[in-house]
């Protein structure tokens, strides 16, 4: 093929990553993302674990400006 450089080599569907390869990354990624989300958005606010207000106070402005329920 003389035009090999001009045409895309692979059709997009050939690039698809198999689900069995993706699944563990997505599973751990989702769990980790949820953990950080809860820590940033709700710990010592709606969720009163751990006790105290230090984390709440530290991320206070972020909670308000990133749109999470706060007070």
């Amino acid at each position, binding site marked *: 093929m003389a035009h090999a450089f001009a045409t895309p*080599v692979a059709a*997009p569907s050939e690039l698809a990553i198999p689900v069995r*390869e993706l699944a563990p990354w997505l599973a751990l990624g989702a769990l980790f993302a949820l953990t950080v989300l809860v820590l940033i958005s709700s710990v010592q606010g709606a969720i009163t674990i751990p006790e105290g207000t230090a984390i709440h106070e530290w991320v206070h402005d*972020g909670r*308000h400006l990133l749109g999470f*329920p706060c007070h």
Partner: protein
Amino acid sequence: MTTRTFLVHGLLAGLLAGIAAFVVAYTVGEPQIDKAIALEEVAGAPASDGHDHTHADPSQDAAGHSHGDEAVVSRTTQSTLGLATGTLALGVVLGGFTGLLAAAGLGRLGGLRPAASTAVMALLAAVSFSVVPFLKYPATPPAVGSGETIDSRTAVYFGFLAVSVLGVLAAVAVARRAARRWTGVPGVLAGAATYVAVVAVAALAFPKIDELGSFPAGLLWDFRIASLLTLVALWAVIGAALTALVDRTWRQHSAAQARKELAASL
């Protein structure tokens, strides 16, 4: 192009996005937060919104806290390091996960090339995770929202967010099925209709939250615009940076493949 490539690109894009969100939040958002706290302190009387910000014993109730100078964390720290912690952590996590979503979308969204499918995944994530939840439950400044209702407000916020995210997953499934049966345009329309229907029903079913009291409308508007700009900055940088990085990797991948095929044909 492996899952690892996408995750690394996503984490990098998320870090940049966290920085961008901090800059916007600090310059546009912090002045509104300061004004809201100033109002709250002038009002002084907690009875105005049924909410005591200067709790006598903070250890007894994590929901009660003070916004003034006597707070556990000073206002300066809250508006700089504290704010940066929030935007950077959320940026990296959302960027990384969007990278993984882009990996899942690769080659699965009709004939879209990697850059296009990545941009679509980032857009869907932004709309379903941030924009639509904001439209139903917009951000509120300090002095709005009672400590007693934080539990129920958080529950409905994340409940609605979950419906929105599940709705977009269903919409993508519908769109792919419809695109296979007909073509791309009806597929996209069917997907969009699915998402709008799910979210519209949920928006009607979920309770309304109104704890504004006599908070000034002008300041509320400014705060909400600032909050929306922060979220838009976050997602715009995630989407743009991730798409650019994925496209660059794909071009390198294609060039390498082309050289291999050329060599094989000689």
